[in-house]
């Protein structure tokens, strides 16, 4: 319960910690506690957020290590790097995209040499009768595509590798 999450706004990093979940959510930001409740509007990414009883309109979308937020009438971009991603970054581990479960390749959307942006669909795989988009986790250039259309693969198979970050 006392994990601390770092969020960076305009170059200044704030530390968020969840202090209570019942009866109400309490989030500590830089040592000050705020009571938070959220009424998800039913529209993905939109909600009414109550902070210490004050309502705020929120629209947001996450893009790899950033969360874009419209809070009331202003827009913000907040950086967040989760510990796993951070570790991968440190190890250069996000250059290779691996399958975490078996499946079959439905289509390939990126060829070696292609410039891709974070969030771009690199390939579509099928599993559980569902097509799942496999997306780039960062901007970069495709180094290699290790699978072909209709190819089955096992968990752990390398799917696509991006050029190491420069």
């Amino acid at each position: 319960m006392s994990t601390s999450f770092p969020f960076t706004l305009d170059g200044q990093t704030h530390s968020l910690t969840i202090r209570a979940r019942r009866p109400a959510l309490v989030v500590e930001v830089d040592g000050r506690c705020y009571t938070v409740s959220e009424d998800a509007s039913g529209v993905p990414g939109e909600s009414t957020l109550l902070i210490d009883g004050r309502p705020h309109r929120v629209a947001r979308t996450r893009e790899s290590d950033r969360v874009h937020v419209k809070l009331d009438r202003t827009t913000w971009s907040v950086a967040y790097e989760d510990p796993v991603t951070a570790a991968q970054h440190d190890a250069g581990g996000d250059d290779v995209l691996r399958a975490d479960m078996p499946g079959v390749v439905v289509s390939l959307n990126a060829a070696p040499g292609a410039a891709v942006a974070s969030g771009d669909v690199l390939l579509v795989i099928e599993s559980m009768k569902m097509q799942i988009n496999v997306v780039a986790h960062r901007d970069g250039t495709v180094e290699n595509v290790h699978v072909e259309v209709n190819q089955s693969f096992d968990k752990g198979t390398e799917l696509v590798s991006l050029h190491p970050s420069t």
Partner: protein
Amino acid sequence: MLDSILVANRGEIACRVLRTARAMGLRTVAVYHHADRGAPHVSLADSALELHAEVPTAAYLDAAQIIAAAERSGAASVHPGYGFLAENGDFAAAVEAAGLVFIGPQPEVIRLMGDKVHARAFAAEAGVPLAPSALMEESFEAFLDAAAGIGLPLLIKAAAGGGGKGMSIVHDAADLEARARTAMSEAERYFADGRVYAERYVEQPRHIEVQVLGDGRGNVVHLFERECSVQRRFQKIVEEAPAATLPAELRARICEAAVKLATRANYRNAGTVEFILAPDGEFYFLEMNTRLQVEHPVTEMICGVDLVEAQLRLAGGEGLPWTQDAISVTGHAIECRVCCEDPARDFLPATGRARVLREPHGPGVRFDGGIREGQPITAAFDSMIGKLVCRGDDRTQAIDRAVAALGELTLLGVDHNIDYLARVIDHPAFRAGALHTGFVTEHADTLGAPVLDADARAAVVIAAALGVDDFRRLAYDIPEPYASIGGWRN
């Protein structure tokens, strides 16, 4: 009457032209580069033809491919929009040579007005006031002497220029020669025409322009003026009609000068005569744009007209749709150009993806958009992705509506100037109408993003944190719906 049209453009202006053409019952054809295949203008047309080019902008500049597309699709006319080929006299001539109707002025008028030196001479002959200036006619040295004789500060401009390129302000006589050489080389690079000229730089100038329509048979009407004084990097970002403050007698003289110029040019179709208005009430011819302007909707809103419809009717040979007496102004309208750029870093263009896009609605609110939710915003095209245009009974109401609509307009996934535009038009100096082209520089210190206190910053980061699954799961045991599914639709 025209029965079909190809729109040789993209983005918001292609959408805007296509909508009027559809409403008039014309068969519509769009063209697009592969990079734009998901763009809204492609969907709006009855059919769409792809233009092939390595570089996306090159597709929309490829006159031969566009004319071939018009012929292939059987379109009887071509609307160039603004930018790209809109002010290219050779393109207009080639369209007409192919037996198609070019929706715009005669090729020779485009060429005349495109050459700033010739246009100035033509304006002088028409009796339109010009700022004192020096042309490079004989030698570079003679030009420097003549320029120095105008007095400082001076503005150096490219003869073939536009969009601020090749433009430079000289405050110190010692800089004149170096600035002139730089301008010449920029002009050569951008316009393949190194000619430059110098004119007196008016301090705290206002930009006033007049919308005109001509039938190409000597008849011209004006649709009053627009004010476009709020600019950044020599480009307009907020425009309005009528001008914020303008004595009736001065307005009449400016409109009259515009009509005089257009009449002398035997102007055909829609055009705009731009002027610089000095604080002392003197005004000077700047240039004539021989096409529809980005900011044409503010005129449409106060005059209750559709300028694209007027263009199509004129191109179809119907003559001027209104007499001058039938055109009057009601209310006030403001346009804000929504651009993907970072106002905090000198308006540097930004790229990304329009992951969330919610357009504003409401009485008096018009959003001329050119992108779709999910669309990538690349460096390939201009950074303007739409225009918010609001009408009010008076200027205050138009501003109030625009501020509210900018608050409603939501664009997430790429940096933009939406909040900045709201701060500009809600600024006391803007509301007071104290405008000049240096407005955003003069008020830079009060136009920055608001400094948030600790509680406000906490609200922003809490709102963001709840969009991160790890945090959310710890807080609620429920992840954000859809958030982790791939693709742009979070």
